[in-house]
């Protein structure tokens, strides 16, 4: 359908923009596309099925399938059923509207009860079948490829949690931050190098060892946050590939856009939308072991008695609390496992 098919003079102010040159090779008659005598306007209009709600139902079904892929299998199944049912009804509608064409075109009338196949002439059937089979083949190739390209990311694949052993807790002096730099996964190499700020808080009132374990990525857009204070390079230690450097950090600052955090990781100034992320940790055989990351809304209190608002690990810049969290209703795949 091109602009050349506008009914001549039928649209006020409409342009016939076909320059009339492209057809020079085939057509010497100068007939325009829209004026081609073989194309009968009346015929065209009768081929169009009437307005129908089935496509809308079909679209809703497809939408449910897509949402279901992310949220849950039952939603996916319901969506698939809805899409199939409405898709069937839609296709049936398209076929049922065919007899009207035959009648309007002056072909021999057929009884409405007659078998559907009788009303579809051979050429129409063959072209529909060709289109249908080609579509099936195309879908059979495209859908798996697209699914492979996109879905792994939505299933939380590639999001592995590595427990990292930072060595004996005696390396962490009480009340002082230590910058721990380590490879999350030695197989992945340098690309998995991470930095954590660890502070030994002594013991809680219940006698449980307490550590503040802050992840170095800024809660604004993920730049590497730096401790604001002198680093004691003399006291640097290397414990099984983990580099430990004590630092006198009263606050943390981000060099990229000026985010500023206090010693507990709470945002004090700048663009960050929440506090610095933290690690879950455990102590195994006297060693401090970092587990998976989680996000923090705010921290009330200090050190061992701090109350930490804990959420699933979210991307930097994503709100975890307040009204803005409704903009991010689905937890990031892989963060909840």
């Amino acid at each position: 359908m091109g602009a050349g098919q506008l009914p001549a003079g039928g649209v006020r102010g409409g342009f016939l923009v076909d320059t009339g040159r492209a057809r020079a090779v085939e057509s010497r008659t100068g007939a325009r596309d829209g004026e081609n005598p073989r194309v009968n306007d009346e015929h065209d209009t009768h081929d169009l099925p009437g307005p129908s709600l089935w496509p809308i139902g079909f679209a809703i079904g497809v939408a449910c399938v897509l949402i279901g892929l992310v949220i849950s299998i039952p939603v996916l199944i319901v969506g698939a059923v809805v899409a199939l049912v409405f898709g069937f009804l839609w296709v049936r509608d398209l076929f049922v509207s065919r007899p009207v064409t035959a009648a309007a075109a002056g072909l021999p009338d057929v009884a409405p009860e007659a078998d559907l196949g009788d009303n579809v002439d051979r050429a129409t059937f063959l072209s529909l079948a060709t289109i249908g089979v080609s579509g099936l083949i195309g879908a059979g190739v495209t859908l798996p490829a697209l699914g492979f390209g996109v879905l792994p990311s939505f299933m939380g694949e590639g999001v592995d949690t590595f427990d990292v052993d930072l060595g004996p807790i005696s390396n962490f002096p009480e009340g002082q931050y230590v910058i721990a730099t380590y490879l999350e996964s030695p197989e992945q190499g340098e690309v998995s190098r991470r930095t954590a700020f660890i502070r030994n808080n002594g013991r809680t009132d219940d006698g449980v060892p307490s550590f503040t374990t802050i992840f170095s990525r800024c809660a604004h857009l993920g730049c590497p946050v730096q401790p604001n204070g002198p680093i004691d390079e003399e006291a640097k230690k290397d414990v099984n590939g983990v580099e430990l450097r004590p630092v006198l950090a009263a606050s943390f600052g981000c060099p990229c856009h000026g985010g500023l955090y206090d010693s507990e990781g709470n945002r004090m100034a700048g663009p960050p939308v929440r506090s610095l992320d933290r690690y879950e940790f455990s102590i195994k055989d006297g060693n401090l072991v970092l587990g998976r990351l989680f996000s923090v809304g705010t921290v009330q209190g200090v050190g061992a008695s701090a109350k930490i608002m804990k959420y699933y690990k979210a991307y930097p810049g994503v709100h975890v609390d307040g009204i803005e969290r409704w903009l991010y209703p689905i937890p990031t795949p892989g963060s909840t496992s």
Partner: protein
Amino acid sequence: MATKTSRKHSLADAALIPLDWTEERSGLVGYTKWFLFRKVPHDISWAQTLGAASLTAFIVQATTGVFLAMYYKPDPSNAYSSIQNITEELTLGWLVRGMHKWGASVFIILMFLHMARVFLFGAYKYPRELNWILGALILVSGMAEGFTGYLLPWDNTAYWATVVGININATGPFVGPFLAQFLQGGLMIGPDTLPKFYALHMLVLPGAIMALIGLHLYLVVRLGVTSPPWSKTAAGRERGPEAGAREGLIREPATEGDSA
């Protein structure tokens, strides 16, 4: 004299024979002539060449990119050293990489200038709205090329700029975190991120841009070049009083008789 003329003739024949041979079997020569020697309004200027300039910049990117791809190694442990090898060891590698790197900015700048020309000349108006939309998609794809290409040197600038870029994507409402997860194949940039960006940069996005440029050019040829807004001659087709006053946007179409 006579021998000179006939030699000239035979030379011309020697040049024309392969062209005629091709033309007779494909019609491509005639079609190329028709494509290159279309009629345009008489009062166009250098401003209307910005689109062709953008296309040239894209072709430069595609050509240099193909050869860079032969030496670049898209995995975290080899990427940086392969870039160093291209720049410092291989003959003319510094030049081709420089063309690709600086040409990227030229491509984006030319697209913006072209867009400004189209906007200020009103050339996006009826019936060319669709071509504006296609152009906007080319611009977005071009900027995505810039984003994915920026990671490939795999130095600290590339790494942290991409961290920030991906996390900006992640702040998009509802779909942002999934988009970020798709881009980097995990919660943070990992071993899968670089090959993914590379594939997007050299296969997916260039393919999309080529297809879009094809459609864009098709519409340019079909709809013709716009007269400038200050044009004294109405380039639009003659039409009756009932057709309204939308003139000056369409070039004079070829008359019906001269179809060759």
